[in-house]
């Protein structure tokens, strides 16, 4: 499947040209001057051809340099002099294709089309336009200089403000330390007093709990000790179904014995010291058969009243009730479920007594210290916020010379047939229907593109079945800041045209005018 390409050269067309060959610019003319051997060397050095093969409408050179005046080489260039206007190099494929590409008509010498030489008119118009543009640019550029100065002032102002704030912050740091120390100073005794008070209460409570537990152990012992022999034995355990470890419905001797820590029987001392602790959580008072409660019916979720079944209430421990009362504020419905009087009974018993006056005073002093510290701390954080905002403002890229800073905090609108578009530079872009309706976010400030000629606003409101909306703002030099056009080249990808003096560069000096004019 190898292929060998042979080219049969099939045409010789000698063009009789005076001076340089057709399609060659003056600056290149020397390369096309005939030498003694009448040999032309391709400009890329890739080969040589006889002079008469120049512009013979057959492509010889790889770089197309032998056919500057025909369409034979696909990569060739044809030079139009365009006297009176700007010279131009066009692709060789535009030579003699029936379309006038050069204003002097030199690209259409075969006569497929009659091209009118309008270079003079174009040149005149171009110069007028250039003058106008230059005028605009000069005016704009002056304004731009002003904007830059203004921006620098503003920036300086912001920098100063930052300095001020930083100074305040430094001062505040010392004050904060001081206040923190005061706070710590006040909180130490406060804590000590509170701890003391609470510790005392805790001890008191423990004693009480112990007493209660002993009473309960006694009660249980007495209840268990059915034959009142001063011992609880295996047989006395067996009737208590709560000791049925394997849940087979029967309390075996082994199971009973296990609850008695492998004793056949225990006296009260042993019971209260070794046994009760293990069984008090499961132990239930034995109820005589005839008084046995019918097991409560399962609580049906669609209960008519929404009030919990009465059987649930005794199961709630007092502690849980207390917890409930603490969360009462968060759960207003709990008030309905647990009427207040029930709670108060429950709470009172375990409630810690109020702090004594001395402790109260210490707490008040600590509160004061905390408040002072908090205030200073807040101010410090506010300062941080302000500095961040200012820094972000200062760190935003407003162009090479900060020339666009002036646009910040301003908004500009453009209205077409259907919508009013709004651009708030360095912030947002949006649109709203002219007929009224809510505003659509087209994007938030994103970045510069294309050497400060384009601003991108992105991550706007998502399009149904499409991307997030975004806007490209094309900035060009103009006399005022003005949004001049808004369009949607692709669904939900918008483009704005914005003219502003900020985009006016220094106009070229007049002596640079028309450097390439050829005659």
């Amino acid at each position, binding site marked *: *499947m190898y*292929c*060998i*390409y*042979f*080219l*049969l*050269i*099939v*045409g*010789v067309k000698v063009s009789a040209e005076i001076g340089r060959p057709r399609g060659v610019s003056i600056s290149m003319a020397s390369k096309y001057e005939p030498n003694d051997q009448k040999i032309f060397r391709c400009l890329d050095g890739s080969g040589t051809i006889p002079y008469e093969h120049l512009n013979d*409408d*057959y492509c010889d050179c790889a770089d197309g340099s032998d056919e500057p005046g025909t*369409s*034979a080489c*696909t990569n060739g260039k044809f030079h139009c002099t365009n006297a009176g206007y700007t010279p131009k190099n066009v*692709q060789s*494929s*535009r030579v003699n*294709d*029936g*379309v006038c590409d050069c204003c002097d008509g030199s690209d259409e010498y075969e006569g*497929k089309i009659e091209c009118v030489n309008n270079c003079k008119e174009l040149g005149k118009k171009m110069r007028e336009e250039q003058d106008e543009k230059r005028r605009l640019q000069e005016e704009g550029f002056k304004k731009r200089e002003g904007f830059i100065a203004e921006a620098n002032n503003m920036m300086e102002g912001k920098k100063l403000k930052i300095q001020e704030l930083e100074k305040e912050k430094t001062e505040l740091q010392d004050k904060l330390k001081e206040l923190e120390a005061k706070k710590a100073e006040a909180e130490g005794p406060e804590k000590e007093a509170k701890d003391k008070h609470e510790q005392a209460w805790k001890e008191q409570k423990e004693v009480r709990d112990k007493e209660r537990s002993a009473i309960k152990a006694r009660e249980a012992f007495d209840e268990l000790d059915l034959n009142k022999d001063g011992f609880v034995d295996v047989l006395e355990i067996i009737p208590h179904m709560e000791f049925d470890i394997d849940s087979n419905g029967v309390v075996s001797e082994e199971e009973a014995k296990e609850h008695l820590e492998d004793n056949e029987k225990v006296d009260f001392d042993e019971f209260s010291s070794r046994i009760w602790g293990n069984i008090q959580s499961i132990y239930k008072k034995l109820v005589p058969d005839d008084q046995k409660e019918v097991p409560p019916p399962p609580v049906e979720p669609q209960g008519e009243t929404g009030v919990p079944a009465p059987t649930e209430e005794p199961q709630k421990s007092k502690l849980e009730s207390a917890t409930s009362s603490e969360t009462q504020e968060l759960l207003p419905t709990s008030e309905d479920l647990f009427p207040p009087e029930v709670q108060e009974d429950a709470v009172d018993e375990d409630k810690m007594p109020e702090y004594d006056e001395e402790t109260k005073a210490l707490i008040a002093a600590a509160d004061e210290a905390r408040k002072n510290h908090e205030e200073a701390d807040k101010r410090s954080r506010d300062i941080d916020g302000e500095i961040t905002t200012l820094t972000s403002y200062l760190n935003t890229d407003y162009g090479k010379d900060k020339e666009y800073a002036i646009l910040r905090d301003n908004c500009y609108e453009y209205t077409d*047939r259907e919508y009013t578009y709004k651009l708030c530079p360095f912030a947002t872009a949006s649109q709203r229907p002219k007929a009224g309706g809510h505003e659509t976010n087209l994007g938030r400030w994103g970045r510069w593109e294309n050497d400060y000629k384009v601003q991108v606003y992105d991550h706007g409101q998502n*399009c*149904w*079945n*499409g*991307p997030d909306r975004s806007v490209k703002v094309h900035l060009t030099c103009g006399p005022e800041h003005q949004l001049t056009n808004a*369009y*949607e*080249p*692709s*669904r939900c*990808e918008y483009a704005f045209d914005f003219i502003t003096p900020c985009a006016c560069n220094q106009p070229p000096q007049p002596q640079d005018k028309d450097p390439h004019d050829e005659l």
Partner: protein
Amino acid sequence: MAATTIRLSYYLCCLLLIVQVHSVNRDNFKTCDQSGFCKRHRSMQPGNSPYIVLMDSLKISSSQISVQLLNTKTNVRLVLDLYGLQGNTARVKINELEPLKPRYEIPVGDVLIGEPKQQDLKVLDKGAGSITLGLEDNKIVVSYSPFRIDFIAGEEPVVSINAQGLLKFEHFRKKPEAQPEEQAPANPIEGEEKKEEEGEKKEEEKKPDNEEEPGLWEETYKSFHDPKPNGPASVGIDVSFPGFENVYGIPEHAESMALKTTKDTDPYRLFNLDVFEYELYNPMALYGSVPVMWAHNEKSTVGIYWNNAAETWIDIRSTTADKNFFSKIADLVKGNTEMAQMDTHWFSESGVVDIFVMLGPRPKDVFKQYAALTGSTELPPLFAIAYHQCRWNYNDQDDVKNVDANMDSFDIPYDVIWLDIEHTNGKRYFTWDAHKFPSSKDMINGVAVKGRKMVTIVDPHLKRDDNYNVYTDAKNRDMMVKGGGGEEYEGWCWPGSSSWPDFINPEVRNWWASKFQYSEYGGSTPDLYIWNDMNEPSVFNGPEITFHKDVQHYGGTENRDVHNLYGFYVQKATAEGILMRSNNEQRPFVLTRAFFAGSQRFGAVWTGDNMGEWSHLKVSNPMLLTLNLAGITFSGADVGGFFRNPDHELQTRWYQAGSFQPFFRAHAHIDTKRREPFLLPEENMKIVREAIRKRYTYLPFWYTLFYHGFRSGETVMSPLWVTYPEDKSTFEMDDEYLLGSSLLVKPITEQGSVGTSVYFPGKDESYAGSQNTYVNAPLDKIPVFQRGGSIVPRKMRVRRSSSLMASDPFTLIICLDKQGEASGDFFKNNILQSSNADPSGKGSTKEWVEKLIIVGYPKLPQVSISQLMAIHSLYITAMIVTAEC
């Protein structure tokens, strides 16, 4: 364009509908089970045809026999007409002997280009059980009881009709009195309940001579009621291809080229529909229908054209031939080896059985035979086979101007820029949005100075607006299709409430054609051409997104009878309008989405709303091959894919593939990102530009291909078996194809692929014959190969548009075969004018041959100066130049 997206925006408030957006909604389209006649035909069992031939009624004339068929169960009589036609073709027509009223037949001259030329039939044998007729070298055996017809080409049975006994012809009948009235449910009940009810009904009504079955007198699909005023009228019959393992054709389906057995699926359906985000590789109906099928094996190629425009389903089974039977009717089938056979079963909702049997015997013969019936693809104007730049939508004149300028500044050639529906004043076709396109002529002329054209979309739905003169004109002339009750039919499409001109009516077509006169279509110029979309037709709120079946057309026909022809007529009328506006001087160009057999005569077809996904790039090849096989050679798929955003690699590969497909247009949905080729990253842009430029260099070759297609009905994009009919390994190959017989194309359709295995057919040509070879194909390479022994004409001076290259010189690429020879030809005429397609005339041109590139030459050619000079002066005077090496 998609039907459903905008429809959704009308009903945006309904969240449920939004959910449907991301894939085809199968619920919108009927399955066979939901179609009464499909179910009735499909449930038939092979064997035991009740039909017998009544020999007493036999009438024989020189090229025709006519005989009655009797249904021994119902006693209903049919009449069979069998015609011999020129070019190894026969026609089998079955109609009712005495129908209550005429059954619909497509007017001759519309799909059939004329009354087919007849060919003598010789009675070879007239026995007690059958009659044998001779048609050129073929034999046709008509067996009496049961009725069947067998076609024997040379010594081989190739086509059998009613061999399975599936002929079912629902004769027109009077609606049973009272009963159906009573039974017509006030509230149509769907699903099981209804079935049960009908089951009971069936039990009660069972009569020996009545085929009373469900869905005969009315049907309900979703919320749509079909009153079926004519009752059951479907027709169906089986066609077998003994000795064949592969059948092809019956577009349009998103399917492989070799058709699949439908044992475990629905039958292939032909019913022109606007399917939103269609699924690949299934038998669901799409936008167009061509009921033509080919069977091909090493020995012969045959096929049938089913001349019926109603909804049609086709079942396909792969079986073995009944050698017992064939040994009786012909002294052939010998030996014990099994003979393969393809059984197909065709059924249409109304009309008649009208089968054209084309007996080949070679692929190029059947294409010619089919072209003799329905015509060939008109030679497109040159610009139409160049590159087209389309998008829904170029927003305004500035947008068009900018795209045009960018294409030039990136040096990417293009010929046509297209405007979709948004260019109009509120979707009123033949108008312009005055704000976006205030001076359309200036815009068109702006591109036309560079030899370019524009295309605007003109859809058949007319906005019901009394201030819209196209609508009021049609309304005042009573030209709209009517609803079942005789009122002007109203449905929803792009403009909202719409009505549709009745294109079935020739007067309406003339009226429509007149709308393209420059005086009528304001803002148009000779450089503006037309695109018909939504012409299935698409009706957003209609059953299956189209017309109700009882919509009334011209001549007392229902849409049921002519559905698949509507889009065909829209394009026909449009093409006639474009021809008329130039006083018949310039060849028209009209793109259509809906089509039927014969649509090839009016312009190009594209594969509708595809997706920007690799799978859709891949399926474009089999879909276009099948369209080519069905005569629609000028066809393409939206480059890049219509929906979704293809990545850069996919776009690049798609451009490469599209540049070697017949109709080459990039298109994109309005919700996609802009993707004109100059927006691609530089690397991809350069590759895409190269692919487009390559297309331009090959335009003389393409033009010649289309010329041959026009003359002979040949495919332009061809399966390998068309040129290598005996190479069995090519029979199912649809990822690789030939252009003419000279270029072998294997587009890359896999993501990340950097190479592919290419099958090189043909043992006698210079590249490695009949084997697979791995070929590197990095992103910048399209695997395309020129056949040894061929000469391909090209023009290497690519300019901004094809017409700017009109007088440029040719370069001939000469690939020698093993004998060191090559031959080729090319065709040249006026690239636009219509009268110049005749090759007998001579003309002159400024073009010349600037370069011969000889590939595969064993040593440096000895070419003398005189030869060089001779070639230089080779100005072409003949229209066809045959070059040989």
